[in-house]
């Protein structure tokens, strides 16, 4: 049996978050703004949100009540989104909120609701190798991120591509979406229509 402090991150399957935020924070300091000592307003904001994200992630994995955990996870998502925004990746920031804080979080809450988990005591009786593999995967992600940060620190990727400043903006994405990708964009509406019709068909008890 694993010690409880180790098992908990694995339990939620989201033990990745703390490492993730921490690495993002490191990446910011070492890489993005190039100068650690420059305390501009922007840097202070990034630092603030990074610390808040780490805090949210830590609280998420240490709370006993799953719903409290979920709420802290939302805090973490919003902080990460704010960091994206400060990095001028507006689109990713919005998608982060929409997809993670919106869709995926609602799914989590549904699961919590349906399983009727009052606390996680039942979950901690689950098999050990699952926890172990969750931890291994977390470590793997951590090492991948760490290597990336290390290489950027070693001046390898320090040159920022000229298009990087503009590519994340909504204007660029919107422009592409409504010209080159206008046809796939329209097709998505049909995919969604099929999905909606299908969901109603399957969810409805009886046709009358």
């Amino acid at each position: 049996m694993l010690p409880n402090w180790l098992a908990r991150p694995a339990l939620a399957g989201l033990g990745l978050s703390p490492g993730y935020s921490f690495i993002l924070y490191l990446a910011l300091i070492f890489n993005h703004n190039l100068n650690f000592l420059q305390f501009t307003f922007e840097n202070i904001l990034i630092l603030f949100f990074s610390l808040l994200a780490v805090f949210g992630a830590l609280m998420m994995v240490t709370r006993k009540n799953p719903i409290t955990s979920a709420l802290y996870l939302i805090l973490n998502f919003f902080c990460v989104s704010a960091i994206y925004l400060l990095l001028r990746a507006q689109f990713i920031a919005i998608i982060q909120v929409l997809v993670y804080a919106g869709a995926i979080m609602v799914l989590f809450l549904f699961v919590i609701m349906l399983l009727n988990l009052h606390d996680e005591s039942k979950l901690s009786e689950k098999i050990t190798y699952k926890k172990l593999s969750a931890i291994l995967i977390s470590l793997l992600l951590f090492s991948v991120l760490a290597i990336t940060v290390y290489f950027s620190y070693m001046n390898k990727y320090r040159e920022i591509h000229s298009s990087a400043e503009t590519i994340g903006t909504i204007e660029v994405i919107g422009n592409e979406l409504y010209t080159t990708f206008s046809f796939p964009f329209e097709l998505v509406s049909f995919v969604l229509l099929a999905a909606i019709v299908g969901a109603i068909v399957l969810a409805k008890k009886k046709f009358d």
Partner: protein
Amino acid sequence: MLTQQILDGLSKFYPETILSVTILVIVFVELFFKKKTRVSGWIAMAGLAAAMLFTFLQVNIPAQTIFFQMVAVDPFSYFFKVLLILSGFLIVLFTFLSDEIRSSEFKTQEYYALLIALTLGGFLMASSVNLLMMYLALELSSLSSYVLAGYFKKSNRSSEAALKYVIYGGVSSGLMLFGISLIYGICGSLDMFAISAYLSANPVNLITLLIAIFLMLAGFGYKISAVPFHFWTPDVYEGSPMPVTALLSVSSKAAGFAMLIRFFLVAFQNAGHPTITTEGLHQYITLPGLHWPEVIAVIAVATMTLGNVVAIWQDNLKRLLAYSSIAQAGYMLLAFVVVSPQGISAMLTYLAVYLFMNLGAFFAAILISNKYKTENIEEMKGIGYRSPLLCVSMAVFMLSLSGIPMTAGFIGKFYIFSALINNGYIWLAIIGLMNSVVSLYYYIKILKNMFLIRPQGDTGAVSFGAGYSVLLLALAIPTIVLGIFFGPLTKFAEYSVQIFGLK
């Protein structure tokens, strides 16, 4: 410029537009009918007929891409459009004639809407030249087929089938998306022509590329139910309503093949090199060092061997047909290994033939389950004496599926094996032939039960309405005629090999 491009695209996009409108019309119209009606079925037929008409108008259209290089209009996609509409049309008729569906208390409007959506997805799968488009088209047809598989929720089996289908489909489309993202990461583009240009001009890490190809094969393999992505097939085919099973085994398989062929040939062609023709045999030039035909060969052999061997033990007719359709996919993949126009035209010929014989087999199975209330082969003893027309047609389909001369299936197999032998893949041809012999056993087993054993108990003749007989003959006669008079079909297949962007 932008408007011009889109208007120009729309003028070559009538069949798909008609299908889209049909979906919307079906969803709306039956809101005005209180009782269960067939109106939506007729609308679906009308929509398919109109789409067919406008597809025929595209017969001599020069190969080109529309909508900013998203969709190709070429003889290759034309072939698949004709195939998909034909199959859609027959499936609507099957649905009309199936007791399983008629007796259910469900209204069928969404059923037809989803059927047309699956056909539309198939159209786009056959013609997309952009990985993003490919994925969306795949999702459109997959989402519709998940729901169709579980549409008649009366039986637990049907719901189980739908659930299994969703889970397998979700996983494999996720894998495929990952593969697409890797290819995008390597080549910096989603456009197949740009991918081919990039790969031909720049050295890339072949291992990453191979991983990406394997991941993408998960998506294709799941659509055509090739080993090792076939696990869903028997359960889903067994649990789904029979017309849906027939649809899955023909339409979505054909669309999957179209996508597979176009993706591999266009994206991995060696763009920098001129076409080489040796000894009168034209071959597509693929990237050096990337051994995807070998991978396909292994998958093809595994697919047909597994399909045929496991089919021997089945006594449920639907399960047997499921394994047989896995094996058939193996034969078709075999022809893809030679990477030449001859191989592709053999594949297309086989697909067209497969449409008739497989749909025919499923229709005969529908009729047997209507009248005899059984899907078990052991319970079909002697029914050849009670309904001769049905069982003789079934015999035609079975013999054709196993590839006996004088049937269309023989022509299909003949072209595939001759393409293999002409290109020096004699071992593959021998394995294919051996598999055909194995398959003969289980196809004949059905016929043995039907004809060689006298019926016990009730021996009265069981006959069908005229509509059933006409449709049965409409499938059985082409299966024989195409086995004797196959010139036009093979000409059409040879013409349809022209894929946009390939010399």
